[in-house]
């Protein structure tokens, strides 16, 4: 696939203070407990009060992050809206399941059903911005955001002027419990700043809504260039090992050209071995900031783009950092979701 892809604007609502203010000055938010929740902004400046009342949490987070991203990019009406979500609006899904039971299928309020639809956030953004072009939503665990990104890159390649690309996921106490039953989370209760001191089965959960405005040409405002993307579904160890050097080579790079790898390392001993492919690379983990969830790759990409734009790391978020990297040209992201969906993303400074 030919053609280039630049991040022209972005916005993030995450468990850290990422929505506004000077990133380099924001202290790390520390949560005691294995479920990180977003630091939610004041939605009133983005969404009218009558709409706000009806909307559940992830809809507010998704819509607000998308609108802030468009503001940041200076693009009012994007040429396409493409998102990824692992779970959509969990609150609405849970509520509708319960109301079906509690009201014995009678006189149900349709709002939770409508809002549980995975493309509800996309529809809201299109409606608010009067965007009548391409609109798509991927719902596939650890590939949800990454396929939204691939779709967006295809659109730019096909001639779309700009694309709004994002991801959103929430966690609820009920869903946290449910996923705990299949071993997603650590048994011991920890706080996120101590995540890597607790290698054991499972990790900590998180959530976030992150959006990007992508364009095919660089501008003075561009944060970074997205140079490459690769997804590997349940790869064998041999295939995964071979894939990383091949991926770099495809983009004209060698291991030594990578200034930093942001790794999805999450202290989950069930799936930690995959990260051995990064041996020898300068690397930092990021899930102590976000927790783990299906579309955490979008947060990693936001973080990489911030680092490339600022040409420094927010050191207060990375206590394990010995010293700032000598140069920050190429950042690689490697993440996987519970060992199934593996992704490489490559970002370059502009």
């Amino acid at each position, binding site marked *: 696939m030919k053609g280039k892809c630049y991040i022209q604007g972005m916005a993030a609502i995450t468990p850290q203070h990422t929505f506004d203010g000077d990133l380099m000055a924001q202290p790390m938010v520390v949560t005691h407990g294995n479920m990180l929740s977003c630091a939610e902004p004041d939605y009133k400046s983005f969404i009218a009060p009558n709409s706000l009342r009806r909307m559940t949490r992830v809809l507010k987070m998704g819509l607000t992050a998308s609108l802030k991203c468009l503001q940041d990019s200076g693009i009012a009406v994007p040429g396409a809206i493409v998102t990824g979500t692992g779970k959509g609006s969990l609150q609405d899904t849970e509520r509708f399941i319960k109301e079906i039971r509690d009201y014995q299928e009678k006189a149900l309020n349709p709002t939770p059903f409508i809002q549980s639809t995975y*493309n509800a956030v996309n529809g809201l953004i299109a409606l608010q911005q009067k965007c009548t072009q391409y609109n798509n939503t991927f719902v596939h*665990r650890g590939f949800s955001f990454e396929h939204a990104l691939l779709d967006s890159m295809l659109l730019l390649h096909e001639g779309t002027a700009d694309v709004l690309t994002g991801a959103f996921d929430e966690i609820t106490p009920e869903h946290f419990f449910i996923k705990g039953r299949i071993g997603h989370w650590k048994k011991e209760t920890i706080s996120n700043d101590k995540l890597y001191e607790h290698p054991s089965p499972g990790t900590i959960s998180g959530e976030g809504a992150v959006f990007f405005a992508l364009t095919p040409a660089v501008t003075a405002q561009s944060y970074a260039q997205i140079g490459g993307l690769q997804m590997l579904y349940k790869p064998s160890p041999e295939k995964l090992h071979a894939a990383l050097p091949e991926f770099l080579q495809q983009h004209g790079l060698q291991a030594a050209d990578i200034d930093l790898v942001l790794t999805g390392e999450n202290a989950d001993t069930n799936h930690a071995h995959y990260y051995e492919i990064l041996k020898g690379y300068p690397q930092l983990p990021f899930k102590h900031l976000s927790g783990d969830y299906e579309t955490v790759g979008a947060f990693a990409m936001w973080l990489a783009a911030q680092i490339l734009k600022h040409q420094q790391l927010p050191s207060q978020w990375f206590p394990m950092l010995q010293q700032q990297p000598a140069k920050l040209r190429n950042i690689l992201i490697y993440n996987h979701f519970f060992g199934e969906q593996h992704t490489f993303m490559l970002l370059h400074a502009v």
Partner: protein
Amino acid sequence: MAERVFITGLGMITAIGDNVADNLRSLRAQESGLGFTRQLDTIYKEVLPVAEVKHTTAELLAMAGMTGREGFTRTTLLGLIAMQEALKHAGISDVQDEVTGFINASTVGGMCDTENVYFDIADPEKSGDFLNYIDTLDCADCTQRIADTIGFDGPVTTISTACSSSANALMYGARLIKAGFVRRVVCGGTEALTRFTLNGFNSLKNVDKRPCSPFDQDRNGLNLGEGAAYLVLESESLVKERNAAVLATLDGYANTNEAFHPTAPSPEGDGAYAAMKTAMEMGGCTPSDIQYVNVHGTATLSNDVAEGMALQRLFGENVPKFSSTKPFTGHTLAAAGGIEAIYAVLAISHQTIFPNLHFKDKMEELYITPETQLLEQYPVRHVLSNSFGFGGNNASLLISKYEG
């Protein structure tokens, strides 16, 4: 120059047949699949008609060759049965002889099974076999189980844009081929009836207690259905290399948004008009080139007005034959785009137009009426297939006869 995208294999299961041949036979015999549910535990069991696949989940497990396997939901099994047929039809015995992608579509994943055990799953006091179903709640579960059973080694993902999901899956697959990402991809969707969606649409007052009657003045909503459908898409070069038979071409497609209302189309059908027009033009067609439109035609009050207005705007006084096949299959949500894309291919390969059942009176808002007769030996070269969904999502596909 981007490669053309050809359709080389079809597989499906719906309320009117367990495979493509049975579907075609029922369409020709004008036998609707609508009736009352035998699988679903709901107070609407004998109130709201649905188009249900006529097999228990255990029977589907056997049909898919998965007897004894755990955690396979009805959604997954319907998909697997359709997938096995599609690959066989395309003459693919080893899916790994060429890197092959799988782009699936689903609206509620394995909800059909999860909803029956959800409160046990969420109850710390309870434990048992139902824990096998925890991971089936999301849309990716059915996709991955099908991918793992078949052995797909290309891109694997799931699209969920409500009722247009599988039309968007076909579009994404075609674009992956055109961009040179893969040369072969199987696209479509799978959907099982659930209490969740039945109550959802019923709470919107969108479900008719009678068999649905699209484009009829007296229509009063949709009937839900279930099923799965997959189409094998291949690049022109791969088709030549392996000397595969081409069933039809996918030369045009479009996805547009209404930006009007979360669940209702604009009264003038702006999104439907733009989707059809763009798809048609992408395939190099003008309105007079289109012989048949397989409409979305859910029989809800608002869809049929909007879609009808869009047809009138696009085609003027010369609206081609059009029909909704939802009175046969029900509205199968994420599977609908795939099922109806297959019907479009059948319309071309059998030179047949399928009737719009249950139509009596012209809608007062429109001057057009759907085709109510089975038309055989009808010259069909280009078909538009429409799928419209919540969130204002409109998709239209242009499926054409392969003429070398």
